[in-house]
């Protein structure tokens, strides 16, 4: 029993054992999703609030389903038209919600570190659903789960993450997670979208797609985040698609049993060709189904967790004790 954390704020610092325990637990919850009654009473009496300060449909719905399938009660909070627009601080928003006896908070926020801030100021459990460009741990966990179910093992796999790495919290969480379980990661993208010195975290970096795809067992395609890019990072969508789009001919460079993942939503014909998004190599829809199971596992495990490791920002980067 390795996973004792009270919060899930990121994958940085999680041990291989902790991650595998989440994946193993998710397997049981995945079974629940195939039953006629897709529900277990494990979180009965618990209340969760989905605090989404950034727009999201898929992640929020995924968490909502996970909470309902665990028999928890839930409330959704989106910042549009709420007290936040009247100038309320994050801390006050949450303290008010906590006063209503909500013990699980799932938060998505544009500021990196917002979940950590929350965890320091409330008594409840916090799950990071995406903070700035920092981490999106449940996405990475469901990616790892999907890969493991398909490929049977994670250690030694060659994973290429392609696209806008600079703005991607999904890439960062996956990098931490894949390293922890022993996979080899290559980050591949234009120099304008690659964070400086990211190779120091332990990935191979390359700026030529063909080089990055060679021999890859898994290709994780990132979305070109048009809504975040204001500063001329790519000349045009067409040029990006021509140079960096994953097509069938480029996929031929990968390992013969290569599989494709994408966190969604897909820009068809831009970062990934249509036939690949829907083809036999694509695990994209599996990711969505597995996402509910993985989020159920996370909520189930942190609910009884007591270890506060990872909350103090100054401690990040060092090994965090369970």
């Amino acid at each position: 029993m390795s996973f004792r954390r009270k919060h899930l704020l990121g994958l940085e610092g999680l041990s291989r054992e902790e991650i595998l325990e989440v994946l193993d637990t998710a397997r049981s919850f995945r079974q629940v999703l195939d039953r006629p009654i897709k529900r277990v009473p494990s979180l009965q009496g618990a209340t969760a609030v989905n605090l989404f300060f950034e727009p999201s449909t898929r992640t929020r719905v995924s968490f909502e389903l996970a909470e309902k399938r665990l028999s928890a009660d839930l409330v959704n909070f989106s910042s549009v038209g709420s007290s936040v627009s009247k100038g309320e601080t994050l801390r006050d928003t949450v303290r008010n919600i906590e006063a209503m006896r909500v013990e699980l908070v799932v938060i998505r926020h544009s500021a990196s570190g917002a979940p950590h801030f929350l965890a320091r100021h409330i008594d409840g459990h916090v799950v990071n659903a995406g903070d700035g460009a920092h981490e999106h741990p449940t996405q990475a966990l469901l990616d790892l789960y999907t890969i493991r179910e398909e490929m049977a093992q994670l250690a030694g796999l060659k994973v290429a993450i392609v696209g806008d790495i600079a703005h991607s919290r999904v890439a960062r969480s996956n990098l931490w997670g894949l390293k922890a379980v022993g996979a080899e990661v290559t980050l591949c993208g234009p120099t304008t979208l690659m964070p400086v010195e990211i190779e120091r975290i332990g990935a191979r970096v390359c700026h030529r797609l063909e080089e990055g795809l060679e021999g890859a067992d898994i290709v994780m395609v990132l979305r070109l985040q048009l809504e975040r890019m204001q500063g001329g990072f790519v000349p045009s969508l067409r040029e990006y698609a021509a140079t960096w789009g994953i097509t069938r001919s480029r996929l031929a460079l990968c390992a013969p049993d290569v599989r494709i993942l994408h966190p969604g939503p897909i820009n068809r014909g831009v970062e990934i060709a249509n036939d690949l998004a829907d083809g036999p190599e694509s695990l994209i829809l599996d990711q969505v189904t597995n996402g509910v199971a993985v989020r159920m596992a996370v909520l189930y495990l942190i609910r009884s967790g007591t270890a506060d490791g990872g909350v103090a920002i100054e401690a990040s980067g060092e090994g965090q004790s369970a």
Partner: protein
Amino acid sequence: MTHPDPKAPAPITDPRDRAPGRVVLDAAGIERATTRIAHEILERDPDADDLVLVAIVRGGEPVAKLVGAKLAELCGHPVPTGALDITLYRDDLRTISPHPIVHSTELPFDVEGRVLVLVDDVLYTGRTVRAALGAIMDYGRPRAIQLAVLVDRGHRELPIRADYVGKNVPTAQRENVTVFLREEDGEDSIQIDEMEPEEP
């Protein structure tokens, strides 16, 4: 598998490492008990057409195997057997920390209309069986649910009773009942020993 007092923290030592306790049922006794349970099941349901066994993971699995084998011999056809993990249905998830490990549930049949016999090794407070009932109901509506246990050690906390019992063993709450079955432990026996007294 040990079933320590639910109010006390679980002992850390593996019971198989401790000095052997008092044997309450030896290999021959277990053999006779499972044979008798199989006979009693068929007495109530002679056709056994709709009969299925569901072992409560993990203690019930080897017992279900023994009973299932005897049933197959007696009625001439295999009896479908499944395994049910009740961890997610426990009534103490809010209070115990960390959560126990969740195992797999495999029910390779439809429970609708079946005579479903739950099988476990030891019946104690009855909370495990209550959780199992909740779990089974989420799969469908059996015609009947019955309960077979190898050992009934008393101290029920809920109004639950077994239909088929291998042996009634009165115990004190500070005692542990451990079931050793050849599959896992190399020998068949049921032993009682005292738990170490807890630090105040």
